[in-house]
């Protein structure tokens, strides 16, 4: 029964390399190596980010649930990111600025760099600078960074819901978003054709 290895096992390193190859291959194939395509999600001309991202999240969430039903994985043994309220909210907001201004996120900029996108290489350079800045002034916000730890809490617990019911609502929401964005994308591209 999974998980088969611990994240720090050397086998995990080999498997992580293979998984990374799949990750990079899929991102590039879907068009995530283009900043203009990625930024489209914020301007309505290309929703590929939303489509790939939410399809992946739903597939993985449902898949992991089935793995558990079949007794293939122990979901209580896998890593769940801790929720530090203030730090997660602030971090997400800053990343929102980074995405709109820079046009990439770290994973997509790595895969775009690999096919020769210079803007992606610059983004990665900037990313490293940002990491160094965070580390340099760390004592100033260490307390904030470590405050509000709610542990590995799940979204359905936070909302006081049953897990399966939450998943159903999540899937319904995603399907609605797919339909709505397909409609918007069509409208926006029609509008831009007129000019």
């Amino acid at each position: 029964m999974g998980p088969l290895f611990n994240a720090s096992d050397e086998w995990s390193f080999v498997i992580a390399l293979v998984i990374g190859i799949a990750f990079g291959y899929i991102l590039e194939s879907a068009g995530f190596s283009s900043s203009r395509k990625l930024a489209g999600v914020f301007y309505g001309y290309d929703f590929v980010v939303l489509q790939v991202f939410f399809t992946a999240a739903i597939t993985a969430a449902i898949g992991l649930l089935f793995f558990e039903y079949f007794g293939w994985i122990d979901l209580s043994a896998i890593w769940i990111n801790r929720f530090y309220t203030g730090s997660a909210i602030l971090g997400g907001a800053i990343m929102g600025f980074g995405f709109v201004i820079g046009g990439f996120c770290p994973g997509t900029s790595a895969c775009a760099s690999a096919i020769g996108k210079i803007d992606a290489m610059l983004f990665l350079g900037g990313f490293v600078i940002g990491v160094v800045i965070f580390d340099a002034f760390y004592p100033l916000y260490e307390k904030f960074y470590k405050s509000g730890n709610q542990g590995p809490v799940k979204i359905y617990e936070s909302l006081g819901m049953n897990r399966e019911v939450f998943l159903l609502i999540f899937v319904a929401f995603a399907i609605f978003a797919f339909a709505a964005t397909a409609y918007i994308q069509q409208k926006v591209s029609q509008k831009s054709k007129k000019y």
Partner: protein
Amino acid sequence: MEEVKIQKPPKKYMNPYLAGVLLGITIILSFFFTREGLGASGAFKRGVAKVEQIIIPAHVESENSAFYHYVKDGKDPLKNRLVYMIIGVFVGGFLSGALNRRLKLKLEHSPKITSRKRAVAAIIGGALFGIGSAFGRGCTSGAGLDGMAVLATSGFVVVGMIFGTGYVIAWFFRKLWI
């Protein structure tokens, strides 16, 4: 006679829903085999920690550093799963680019702005992402996508904040893109 070189155009992108399903399966396999999901920012943080360990060990090996836990007790920050994963991302991205005829050295930008402006925006955006993903304990993949896959509250909050903030501020930065 002059040789005419016909360069085939790049192939079309994969259907986004198919890509999403394949990415979802990749996430499941990652959790199944290694207990943890995908990640991108972690490898770069560890890279920075490694360089700091060599040039300013007094800083990184103290409580004053955010990366103290990466190097504590003489640990090598690069001896980590995420470092191998990011190498894989570069390899996989390159393979797809090569097979789909998209390998090309190019600074991509909207025709309405100069390359220089795009370059500056890319660096600033990257720096903000570096700071943001440190506070968020992961980026779009490690905190967002993995978090949503395991239904973690942190994942939904981070994703909601990234895209929510993005939509709120998009109008102010529209000249960079449209």
